[in-house]
């Protein structure tokens, strides 16, 4: 019978992705309630050092799946290697963090077991011996409680930040089991990851950020936000659609594919707050949202909100701030 929670540890050149440690924390919490042991799996060509490091967490064992073809990440190799580990260990659950890499290979893996994943969960709880998962739907506007029915294994991924890495309990040193896995043909040929030309703007050091989203409507209206940023002594930034439209350069983009910031003050103008944006700014000190849609998810994390027309609010806000600062 299938048993236990198997946690996938993502790494880059043998260095664990810290969001994978969040998945260990999730597995430990839910595993203790379900009385199911937690184990972890590392895939790679030579990742025994990483496996030893993970064995320091409170897990039953760490499986180190090795093959030369796992040296560079590809979805073909990872699906083959991981599939064998699942078949050998027969877990009830497979937990992963919903990173870009997991999104790339894990649906393929789950499909080999005749299912998809309960993906991008923001929390989970045990109810009547089952796990109830919660996911965000409609770009963050609604939550859905999801129950998994049917046979094991259940594949679930958690949103980055849903659990904290420091919640993962350390242990007394779990055994590492090294398994040589077989990998079939790998059809894609990856080149080394790279960063685009060095980012000209480092928003991570800004104390104040004024960010604009779709609600700004046109490039011609950016001046409004720039004046507010100037009055506050802050930097201007944007959500993805604004940078996609090239109204602002990509090095001003906040979110999962741009910069992650935590300024003292974050002012979101006409930003609805899709999760991809929120993960890049939710740890800001004070968050202000101005948006015409009262249901915009940005209001869920805002300290101050104005439901209304930003074209009315922002000029007044800029003037009032200037008055208070004695700039007028």
């Amino acid at each position: 019978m299938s048993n236990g929670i198997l946690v996938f540890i993502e790494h880059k050149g043998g260095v664990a992705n810290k969001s994978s440690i969040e998945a260990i924390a999730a597995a430990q919490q839910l595993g203790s309630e379900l009385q199911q042991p937690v184990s972890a799996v590392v895939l790679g060509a030579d990742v025994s050092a990483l496996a030893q490091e993970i064995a320091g967490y409170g897990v039953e064992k760490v499986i180190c799946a090795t093959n030369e073809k796992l040296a560079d990440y590809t979805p073909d190799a990872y699906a083959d290697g991981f599939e064998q580990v699942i078949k050998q260990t027969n877990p009830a659950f497979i937990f992963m963090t919903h990173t870009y890499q997991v999104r790339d290979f894990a649906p393929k893996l789950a499909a080999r077991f005749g299912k998809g994943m309960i993906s991008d969960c923001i929390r989970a709880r045990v109810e009547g011996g089952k796990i109830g998962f919660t996911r965000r739907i409609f770009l963050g506007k609604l939550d859905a409680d999801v129950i998994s029915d049917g046979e094991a294994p259940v594949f679930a991924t958690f949103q980055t930040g849903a659990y904290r890495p420091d919640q993962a309990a350390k242990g007394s040193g779990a055994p590492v089991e090294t398994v040589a896995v077989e990998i079939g043909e790998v059809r894609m040929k990856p080149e080394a990851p790279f960063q685009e030309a060095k980012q000209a703007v480092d928003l991570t050091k800004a104390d104040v950020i004024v960010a604009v989203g779709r609600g700004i409507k046109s490039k011609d209206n950016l001046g409004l936000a720039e004046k507010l940023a100037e009055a506050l002594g802050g930097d201007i930034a944007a959500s993805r659609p604004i940078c996609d439209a090239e109204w602002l350069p990509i090095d001003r983009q906040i979110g999962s594919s741009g910069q992650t910031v935590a300024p003292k003050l974050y002012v979101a103008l006409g930003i609805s707050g899709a999760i991809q944006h929120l993960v890049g700014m939710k740890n800001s000190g004070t968050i202000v949202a101005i948006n015409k849609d009262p249901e915009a998810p940005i209001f869920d994390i805002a300290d101050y909100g104005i439901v209304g027309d930003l074209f009315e609010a922002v000029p007044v806000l800029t003037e009032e701030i200037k008055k208070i600062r004695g700039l007028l």
Partner: protein
Amino acid sequence: MKIVVMMKQVANKDAILRINKDATWIEESDLSFEVSESDGYALEESLRVREKLGGEVVVCSMGPQRVKSVIKDALARGADRAIHVVGDNLTHLSPFAAATVLADAIRDEKPDLVMTGLQSDDHGYGQTGVIMAELLGLPHATIVIELNAEADKLRVKRELESGWYQWYDMPLPALLTIQSGISQIRYATLKGIMAAKKKEIKEVTPSAEVVGRPSHQRIEKVYLPQKMKQTQLLGNGDAKAGAAELAQKLHTEARVF
């Protein structure tokens, strides 16, 4: 080059969503719909590849008759023909069941390239394309932000996290999931809209066995997200009054300037 592009119709981004009576989904009766954002970019890339290499673009969409508006719009922008997987109760298909139905619908087309958006704007599973690749036996790449197609191979730039990227070379046939913003989307021309009226839309019915299979994931309840913070809403509908109050509060309460 035969390209199949998978496009999903979802609730309009600006629509006010109401939860249905059973609290299992949204009330769809008087909602406005549009194409899921990244699928629109998948269509644009498909048209660009066809313009470079020749061939045809077949658009495939699943859902009730209302999804014809997405199909007709794609045909007006330049897709050559369409496959409509018709069904009324397909919203709750699991990503695996949806991918199974969609893979069945396009398998006989033997496409050289399948493209779709990286995730839908409603369920947001982010899986259907990748599962289709597995079911069709195709290599895939996700979150593609640049694409160079040749007659027998592909070079794609994948977006990784935090501003990192990676190039992949891969053979054809293949499946790609496309990131929003990969290119500027064209508008339909009047000529395109007229031409679309003559283009073929083939209707197919999904396998009752697949649709009727018990799902391995089921939505129990849909609700408004719990707020993480208590937001002070200012102005009570008067944006200007709210702005003046906000300036004071940022100064005296939050002390951020």
